[in-house]
C-alpha cells in the first residue's frame, strides 16, 4: 500500500482496540506511569526518557521489541516528544517494566507536573545547517534536570527542546524552554552555485540580502543585510556555512506551549540572545535553564505553566527575579510581524 501502514487498528492490541472511544478516565499514578480506565479494562502506559537525539542501536531497538513482547504481546508506541511508550496490563507489571527499563539505562518519568522529555535535532550529528550541537546540549540538560523527570514535582507540565539552528527541527520555540543555535557568520558561495536555481534562491531570502549576478551565473550575499537564518543554505547546495571555528552559539528561548489553557498557544521568546558554544557540558546554558526552572518553581502557583507565570508577573519582574540580565537583542526589530500577531487570528 502507498503511504503509511493503515488502518492503524491493525497495529494496536485487542485491549486497546475494544476500548476505542470507551475510555472513561486516565489517571497519573507516579512519574512515568499512567493508568487508563474503561468500564471493563485497565491498562498502564509507561513513558521512557529517550536518548537526546532519539537515535538507538538496533540492539536497543530489539530489546525494546522484547519488552513489548514480554508485557503487552508485542505492542508499543512512540510519542511526538520522542518518548518510547510501553504498555502493561497490571500496575505490578508496569512497575516491573519500569525496573527493566531502568536497568537498561532508560529512566521512566514524565507526565503531570514533571518534565515530559527533551527533544533535540540532529545537530552536528547528521545535519548541514547546525550552528550548535543540539544532542550534546540536550544530554547535558537531561543530566541536570532529570530529578524533575522522575522525582520532584514542578508547578505544571514542563518541556525542553534543543535545535541546532533557526529551522527548529528539534521542536524549539514549542517548548517551555528551548535552546536554538545561532549562526554568527554569513554563508559563503561555492562553485556548486551553478547547479542552483539562482532566482529561486534569491527569492527565499527574507531580507533581500541575496544579489543576483545573472551575467556571471552566480549570486552575492550582502553581509550587512544577512541575518544568518540559513534558508538559502538549505535550498541551494552552492551556499554553505563555513563558519570560522568556535564562534557560533545559541539562544535561550522561553515560554512556548501548545494547549488551549490560558494564555493559549504560545511561541517561545528570546530571553538570552547568545551564549557561545561550549561542548561538552555547556555550563552557562545549563545554569541559566536551571535558574529559570528554580525561580518558576519557587514563585508560580500550582498548575501555572512557565509562560502563564511570566504573563502574570510581567517580563520586567521575570528578569529581576531570575537575575538574568536583559539584552537589547530581545526586542524585535525584524519587521511588522508583531502587528500581524496583534490583529489577525488566534480566535477561538
Amino acid at each position, binding site marked *: 500500500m502507498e*503511504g*503509511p*501502514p*493503515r488502518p*492503524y487498528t*491493525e497495529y494496536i492490541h485487542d485491549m*486497546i482496540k475494544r476500548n*476505542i472511544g470507551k475510555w472513561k478516565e486516565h489517571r497519573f499514578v507516579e512519574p512515568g506511569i499512567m493508568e487508563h*480506565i474503561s468500564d471493563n479494562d485497565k491498562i498502564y502506559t509507561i513513558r521512557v526518557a*529517550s536518548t537526546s537525539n*532519539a*537515535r*538507538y*542501536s*538496533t540492539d536497543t*531497538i*530489539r530489546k525494546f*521489541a*522484547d519488552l*513489548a513482547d514480554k508485557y503487552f504481546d*508485542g*505492542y508499543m508506541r*512512540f*510519542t*511526538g516528544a520522542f518518548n518510547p511508550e510501553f504498555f502493561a496490563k497490571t500496575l505490578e507489571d508496569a512497575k516491573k517494566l519500569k525496573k527493566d527499563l531502568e536497568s537498561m539505562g532508560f529512566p521512566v518519568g514524565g507526565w503531570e507536573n514533571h518534565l515530559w522529555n527533551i527533544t533535540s535535532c540532529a*545537530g*552536528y550529528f547528521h*545535519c548541514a*545547517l*547546525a550552528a550548535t*550541537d543540539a544532542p550534546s546540549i540536550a544530554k547535558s540538560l*537531561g543530566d541536570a534536570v*532529570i530529578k524533575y523527570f522522575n522525582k520532584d514535582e514542578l508547578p505544571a507540565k514542563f518541556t525542553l527542546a534543543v535545535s541546532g539552528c*533557526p529551522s*527548529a527541527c528539534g*521542536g524549539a*520555540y*514549542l517548548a517551555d524552554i528551548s535552546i536554538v543555535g545561532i549562526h554568527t557568520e554569513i554563508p559563503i558561495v561555492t562553485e556548486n552555485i551553478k547547479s542552483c*536555481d539562482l532566482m529561486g534562491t534569491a527569492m*527565499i531570502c*527574507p531580507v533581500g540580502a541575496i544579489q543576483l549576478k545573472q551575467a556571471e551565473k552566480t549570486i552575492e550575499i550582502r553581509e550587512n543585510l544577512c541575518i544568518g537564518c540559513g534558508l538559502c543554505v538549505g535550498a*541551494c*547546495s552552492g*551556499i*554553505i556555512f563555513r563558519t570560522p571555528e568556535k564562534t*557560533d552559539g545559541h539562544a535561550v528561548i522561553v515560554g512556548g506551549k*501548545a*494547549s488551549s*489553557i*490560558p494564555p*493559549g*498557544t504560545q*511561541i517561545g521568546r528570546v530571553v538570552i540572545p547568545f551564549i557561545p558554544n561550549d561542548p*561538552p*557540558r555547556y555550563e552557562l546554558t545549563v545554569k541559566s535553564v536551571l535558574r529559570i526552572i528554580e525561580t518558576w518553581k519557587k514563585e508560580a502557583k500550582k498548575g501555572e505553566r512557565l509562560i502563564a507565570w511570566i504573563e502574570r508577573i510581567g517580563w520586567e519582574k521575570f528578569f529581576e527575579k531570575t537575575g538574568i540580565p536583559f539584552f537589547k537583542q530581545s526586542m524585535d526589530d525584524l519587521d511588522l510581524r508583531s502587528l500581524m*500577531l496583534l*490583529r*489577525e487570528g*488566534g*480566535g477561538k
Partner: protein
Amino acid sequence: MNDPDEVVKGLEIIKELKKGPWPSYITETEKTRYPLKLYAASLYLKRDLWTTGGYVSVPGVPTGILMRVTSRPDIGESANVVRVYLPSGNFVTSKMLRNLADFADKYGVSMVHAITTSEDFEIPGIPKEKIRDFVAEFRATGMEVGSTGDAFRNTTTCVGPALCEYATFDTPKFRDDFYNRFNDYAKYPTFPHKLKLKISGCPLDCARASQKGDIAIIGSWEGAPLIIREKLKLLSEKEMLEIVNGCPTGAISLKNGELNIEGDLCTQCMKCVKLSKGSILPGEKKKYLLYVGGKLRGKKGPFTAKLVEKMDDPYQAFDIIERIINVYIENAARKERLGDMIFRIGMKNFLDLIEKEEKPYHIKDLRTNIFYKVSEEEKTKMLEELKKSLGGE
C-alpha cells in the same frame, strides 16, 4: 594510519557525554557503525562537518530520502537517510521494530532514529547505490518511505480515542482517511514548499497542531463541557473548589453542592476537564476547528496557526484542504511556507481566495485606520444588512 588531532581530542570530549543519568546517545552510537569520529571532531572544532547535498534522485522514490554529505571524507563517509512512515498514532509492533532493525543492519549503520520531531522513523547511513534495493525490499514488508521534499510531510495526530477519553473524533482514523485521499500530494513533491497537516482530538493539542501545522485540525465543542454527575459526586469539596477557581473565565459556579458551567462564558480551554478526574468531558455539541499558517521556520520566523473555519464534521476539512492546496500552489513564491504567504497577501485576501466569508473569529482586533474601499454593490448590501439587523424599513 593515525587519527588526526581533532579526532583524538574530540573522542576525549565525547567520553564526557557517556556519563550521567540521562540516556547517552554516545553509548548507543558506539554500538553502531555510525562515523563517530566525524562527530567527535566537529565537537572539538565547534563546527558542523556535514554539508548540504540537496536531494537524491532515485527512480520510483520521489520522496523519503535525505542526502548527507561529509566535508571530511578522511574521517567519515557521506550517507543517505531514509525516512519511514509509522501507523497513525505512532503505534508500532515488535515485529515492525525487528523488521526495521534488520533493515538498518543490512543496509544502514545498525542505527534507527526512533522518532523524529515530525513523528516518522529514519534509518541513517544507507549508501546511494543501495537505495533502490532497500526501498523495493522494504515496501514488500508493507512499509513505505516518504515525508521529505516539497510535498505533504508526515501528518501527525494525537492518540485520539485509542487511549484518551478527551478525543472529540477518531484522529488516527482521520489520518488514515487523509492518506487514502491525499497520498499523491504526499508522494510527489509538487508544492512551492513543504506542507504539514497536524491533527489534535481536543484543545489540549497534544499533536502541537496549533504550533506546527501549516494546516491544523483541532477538535473542540460549543457551549459548556459535559458534566458526568455521578462521577462528579465522588470528588471532595476541595477538588470541586479547585475546579471552580481554576476556570479562567469564571464560567463555573457551585451552588448547594451542585456544580454548574455557563456555556456562554466557556472558552473550551479544557482546564476544568483536566482537573476533574474524568467527571467533566468535552461538550456534546462538537465543533472542529481548522487552522492555517503555523510553522517554526520560514521567512518571518515562527508563527502560531490562525483559525479559518469552524466545522460540524471534521471530514468537511478535506474539501477545504483541497482548495488551500490550489491557492497555495498558485500564489506562493518558491520556498514560501503557507504562513509566510498568508502574511504577505493578508488574511483577508487569503480568505477570499479559499472562498470563506470573513468572521469575527478570524481576528484578534479590528483595524484602526479607515483607508479601505467600499464598492457600490457593497454599500447597498451593507445598508440592507444593517437595516435587517437593527430594524428600520
